[in-house]
């Protein structure tokens, strides 16, 4: 499983490396792959929204326009998901939704206003690293609990617990900030 996750990540890296070398077919493939992964991530967060495809396109344009900010020596996935996440927060800000579903199980609902001008990394900096890492992998990079657990070498239950505790703490921080 760990190998599968690494392979998925390295596909993006390989495609981007080829694209940077001038291979436009590889770049097209990279964008198609990125679109697919970003769509999956956004679907988990906003569901089958009518604006989902618009948001995916916005992310692709941002990735293209800001491609010079990608360090060639660093993996593509965290960079790509950070941009997608930023665009998602911007989408919520524009839309002014009352609730943001941060988790599939919807045990946490953080008011969108609270996150509108806050980077998710700022929030994650405020919780224990293990929990932040768990949330980053499952909610930002789009891994399942099993994939993330395999990569970190912990069981799926432990992974779920880390995510749950982290999300609970994020909710508390968001509410404290709002108060």
């Amino acid at each position, binding site marked *: 499983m760990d190998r599968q996750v690494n392979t998925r990540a390295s596909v993006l890296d390989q495609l*981007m490396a080829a*694209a*940077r*070398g*001038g*291979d*436009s*077919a*590889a*770049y*097209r493939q*990279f*964008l*198609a792959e990125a*679109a697919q992964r970003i769509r999956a991530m956004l679907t988990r967060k906003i569901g089958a929204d009518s604006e989902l*495809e618009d948001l*995916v*396109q916005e992310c*692709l*344009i*941002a990735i*293209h326009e*800001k*491609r*010079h*900010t*990608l*360090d060639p020596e*660093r993996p593509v996935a*965290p*960079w*790509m*998901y*950070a*941009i997608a*996440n*930023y665009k998602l927060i*911007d989408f919520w800000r524009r839309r002014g939704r009352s609730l943001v579903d941060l988790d599939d199980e919807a045990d946490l609902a953080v008011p969108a206003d609270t996150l509108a*001008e*806050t*980077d998710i*990394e*700022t929030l994650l*900096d405020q919780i224990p690293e293990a929990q932040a890492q768990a949330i980053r992998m499952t909610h930002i990079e789009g891994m399942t609990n099993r994939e993330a657990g395999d990569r970190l070498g912990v069981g799926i239950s432990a992974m779920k617990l880390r995510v749950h505790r982290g999300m609970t703490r994020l909710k508390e921080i968001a509410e404290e900030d709002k108060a």
Partner: protein
Amino acid sequence: MSDTDSLIDKLASSGAAPRGGSLLHFTTPLVAVGLICTLGAILFLEDAFASIDTHGFSPMIVKWGFSLAVLLLSAFALWAIGRPGRRSGGATRALAVPFALVAALVLLELLVGKFTFPGATWKQCLVAMAVMSPVAFIGAILAARWLAPTNLRRAGLAAGLFGGAVAMTAYSPFCPEHGMLYLAVFYCLPILAMAGLGWLLGPRLLRW
């Protein structure tokens, strides 16, 4: 073919190679505002380094040591914050180090009891900081907009610190005052005020 597929084709056709000279694009506005502020100070102020005759090199070394440290650290923080997916907490926290050192030296000066305050030229100092900081801040905002900051408040704060640090670097050779309390009140506070303004304005100025 869906709209997204059409978009992908269009983006792919314009090429994947990143626009060159990323670092150059970032540093050009920073250097430009630094030069503008320096030239402005030279043109409008007199007696650069006059205080060295009376107080020696030490006050100048302290002033430039502080301002250049903030300038370089804030530029580096801006660079780190502007690159998505990178952790920038360390670079941001490092910005506090020069201020902590100044606070410690102010405390020491207060304990020793050797200080003159506020000095004769504090109004000129405040005016210079108030005029030059926003100019340099604009350069930092332009530099940050070339990148892709995802934490806009943090980026705005770093841009504000950069603005204030450039102003201090340009003006301090013309400043006859010395003493850590003076530095803390008439340099550090305006720099922090500019940083606060940057923190407030970041989400408006840096959205992309």
